[in-house]
């Protein structure tokens, strides 16, 4: 545990989802739903590889992406030359600066003592401001219920010292859970290892230079992160607030000035 994450006796935890270890079994999707009592999404065949749940949303909090594409010859792993099929478990990123948290007008969305972003279901009024504010399209409103839902980071499990359900269920330890600093270190080491084995397209996804200021659910993916629903430059929309308010202020000032002028003339 680093000094940072031991601030005030709090412990900042994180997921490291290493897609190079993912076998696409979806145990994480099911374990999450079982533990949290989340309903099924609907029985619709998508035809999109083996992915029939489609996306993270109000009733899918862990979602396995299936990425089929032509491999690049010369790269190691993934059976090399003939086909490539990668799997990665998507989840709420629990951003350091969370768009949903900033946008929530009722204070329903809070930062827990573990550093996760949590929607309090008894406070949420279903305004859905958070939905448009998430740069990853994670949180979603359940129209039947009226409230917004997303991954809770198994807040109830963490409170009693347990591992989140998805990480616990993952048979290959593709989903790792631990202190944020540990996960950062593990990710760096892992990518070094993958590069040494010829998988030079492996990278860490943890955008720290944009307004989300880094994630508490980081990923290791191969190739373009966009294939895994991971945008290259995610911004919390509140980053535009200052510019927006400033523009409004200037605009109204100009309007006021113009009105006064018209009155005087």
């Amino acid at each position, binding site marked *: 545990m680093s000094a940072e994450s031991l601030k005030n006796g709090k412990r900042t935890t994180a997921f490291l989802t290493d897609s190079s270890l993912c076998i696409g079994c979806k145990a994480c999707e099911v374990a999450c739903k079982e533990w949290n009592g989340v309903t099924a999404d609907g029985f619709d065949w998508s035809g999109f590889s083996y992915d029939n*749940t489609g996306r993270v949303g109000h009733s899918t909090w862990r979602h396995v992406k299936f990425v089929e594409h032509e491999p690049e010859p010369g790269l190691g792993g993934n059976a090399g030359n003939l086909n490539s099929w990668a799997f990665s478990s998507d989840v709420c990123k629990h951003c350091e600066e969370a768009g949903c948290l900033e946008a929530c007008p009722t204070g329903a969305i809070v930062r827990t003592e573990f550093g996760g972003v949590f929607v309090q279901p008894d406070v949420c009024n279903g305004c859905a401001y958070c939905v448009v504010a998430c740069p990853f399209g994670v949180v979603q409103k359940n129209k039947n219920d009226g409230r917004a839902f997303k991954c809770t980071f198994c807040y109830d499990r963490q409170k009693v010292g347990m591992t989140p359900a998805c990480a616990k269920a993952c048979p290959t330890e593709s989903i790792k859970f631990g202190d944020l600093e540990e996960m950062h270190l593990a990710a760096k080491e892992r990518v070094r290892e993958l590069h040494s084995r010829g998988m030079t397209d492996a990278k860490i996804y943890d955008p720290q230079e944009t307004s989300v200021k880094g994630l508490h659910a980081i990923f290791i993916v191969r190739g373009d992160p966009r294939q895994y629903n991971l945008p290259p430059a995610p911004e919390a929309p509140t980053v535009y607030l200052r510019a927006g308010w400033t523009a409004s202020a200037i605009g109204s000032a100009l309007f006021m000035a113009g009105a006064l002028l018209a009155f005087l003339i």
Partner: protein
Amino acid sequence: MPGLGTTFGRGGATTAQQDLVNADAILIMGSNMAENHPVGFQWVIEAREKNHTQIIHVDPRFTRTSAMADIWVPLRAGSDVLFLGGLINYVLTHNKDFREYVVHYTNAPTILREDFRDTEDLNGLFSGWNAETKQYDPTSWLYEGSPEKGSLFAGPWPGHEEAGGGHGKDRGGEAGEIEEHNSDPTLQHPRCVYQVLKKHFARYTPEMVEQYCGIPRDLFLKVADAYCSASGPEKTGTICYAVGWTQHSNGVQIVRAAAILQLLLGNVGRPGGGVLALRGHASIQGSTDVATLYDILPGYLPTPMFNRAANTLKDYIAKHRSSSGWWANFDKYIVSFLKAYYGAAATSGNDYCFDFLPRVTGDHSHFGYWLDMMDGKVEGLFIMGQNPAVGAPNGRLERKALAKLKWLVVRDLVETEPASFWYNSPEVKRGELTPDTIATEVFLFPAAGVPEKDGTFVNTQRLLQFHNKGPEPPGDARTENWFMYHLGRRLKAKAAQDLRPRNAPLNALTWNYSTEGAHAEPRAEEVLMEVNGRTMADHKLVAGYRDLKADGSTACGAWIYSGCFPERDKNRANDRAPVDSYGHGWGYAWPSDRRILYNRASARPDGKPWSERKKLVWWDETKKEWTGLDNPDFTKDKPPDYQPPEGAEGDAALSGDQPFILHPDGVGWLYVSSGLKDGPLPTHYEPLESLLANPLYPGRDTDPAALKRERPDNAYALTRDKRFPYVLTTYRLTEHHTAGGMSRTLSHLAELQPELFCEVSPGLAAEVGLRHGDFATITTMRAIVEARVMVTSRVMPIQVEGHTIHQIGLPYHWGTNGLVKGDMVNDLLPISEEPNVRIMETKALLCDIRPGRRARGKAALDELREHKERAA
């Protein structure tokens, strides 16, 4: 299981999944391990990550396993023996066998009889074939110098009876006293097994593999080099397989080929080696160990045959006991078993009630009695925790046969298709059956689920794991134990009032289990204690099978599990404190908690490990015993240089360097001298429906001993049938579980794979006009099915003899009941029987495919009939 049983001595995986991390190369074939054993697959991942183990996956499709492998090898479905034979040929041609291991630990030096003829001599047949009975007489297969056992009993050799499956013959080699034989340790004699093996596989060249498996020569050689170099004192490799191999008309021989390869490479009994049979169910190993199969009694004792050499206990023992090796104890096991069943009623005076055991009179396998059922010969049936209406092949016949019963009992967690066939099935929808004319009385009993009961799982690595009851089952749901116990209790009560001879077995049967709770639940642990065994005099639990006797003083339900419950409060299957990487202290592996079988072979003949890196079990000269990282699969205090004295019997007849202790000659069998109905060596045959004639043996297309059970309602396509020009292979998905009873009914699983889909290559889609996302209709000689189309390059066409062979994939999990429904894919398959275990061929058959949905109702049958009436 006979593939492993005959080659090594026991019909079970030789290793544990945890041991995969010790392998230098892992060959996964006939298995989609990541898909269907995702939790076990973690050790493949661990091997890859920790040791940079090479992972090779051979499969007609690129699957979730292939995605994690280093090399994927696309294979023509049904050409497995050709590929494996190619690897064997590679090893023998380039002298890559682990010579010292092969000479000492296998029957490579053993010399065969002069009258033995190989498939290379007889165009695809071995000597001894009787074309009328369609059976082999294995006499000419015996070792030179081995006296035939025929003088001791009448009738065919064990494993070669007409009736019966092969499980009881997991042993093989019973036709002769094979511990007596001639051998040539230099492996030069033209009739020694090594040379015969060389000749047998001589034409399984890389060119042959390229031409008829569809694997480019360079790729094949790359794989051969990668896998076969994981051999020798410093390296080992593991082969993992599952139903991709066993559900073939020559399934046992495919497994044999892998077992031969592992013996040649010296990989058996060593860490990171062996053959990992990936059995597909939490307790499927248990189901053959404690015998839900008709032809074996618990512990793989053979069920006696009717009117053959088994009328008396004495003859039965003479037939199955061997004077050398561990099966010399056969009499102790059968007598103790009979004492467990019949208790005080079983005495030496009445052959321990041996006469009360049912006799095999024919094919009582699933297909045997089901076809009888179809022909109106069966009155009643219990279906418990199985779904043949969806899972069995030729579902249309399976379901129609149910309508011929007088009564049917279904016990399951949900209302499965066998229970609802009479009002909701394709047959009813198509007017083939009408509810008001079906006389079958159907009883549906709700079953308790796993967490609602005590019991034991025995998984693929022979590990007994007791599970403890959590919540009470809801409402009327009851456990299997409850059902069988109370049914038995009531039947015994009736028999007690009716003392006719026919009820003598029931009256003699011991049925004393104490019960607990409001529903009088029998205590599962008492059953496990009975399985472990006791002394009759004081009812003390025995420490293990070494304590069993042939004089009626001990009782034991399944000798292979003996030792799992050695004392009253010591249910070792319930141990949960692992102490090492092999998991000792967690559960109990049979036999005697040995995690890696045949581990004596991990040491040299002199008892020292082959290498420090691959040490497992070795001789401790100071303590004068075998020691190491696993319990030795060997007599603990038998020194490596022990030589049996003249006239020694049983285990004492095996020397200190003979690791395969179940075999009378103590070695692994590259060549199986008797016991397998289709030959002592694996041979390439085409699947029962194929687009090719056998390229190796023209005129001998298919496994001669496999049974097609061909009849009008179980018809087959011809070879290169113009009506069915594509190859169909069926398989499973991670998200569903077998016939779908436990997955189509759960929303969290049903939503993951809601609809049946077929997988076709872009080339086939273009050829036929299939569009991704639309529907397609697939027909075979048996049925017509519709599915969504998934066009994907993960399914590849194979080039053979200049022709393109298109392969179509279909997962089989859908049925008429549940949250998600779909056509039943296994309706497309024929009922067929591999000769030794009578399992059906699901992995390669012929079909046709067209765009669009199938006709509805009766019109679907018209469409099928029209299709079959086209020119073949």
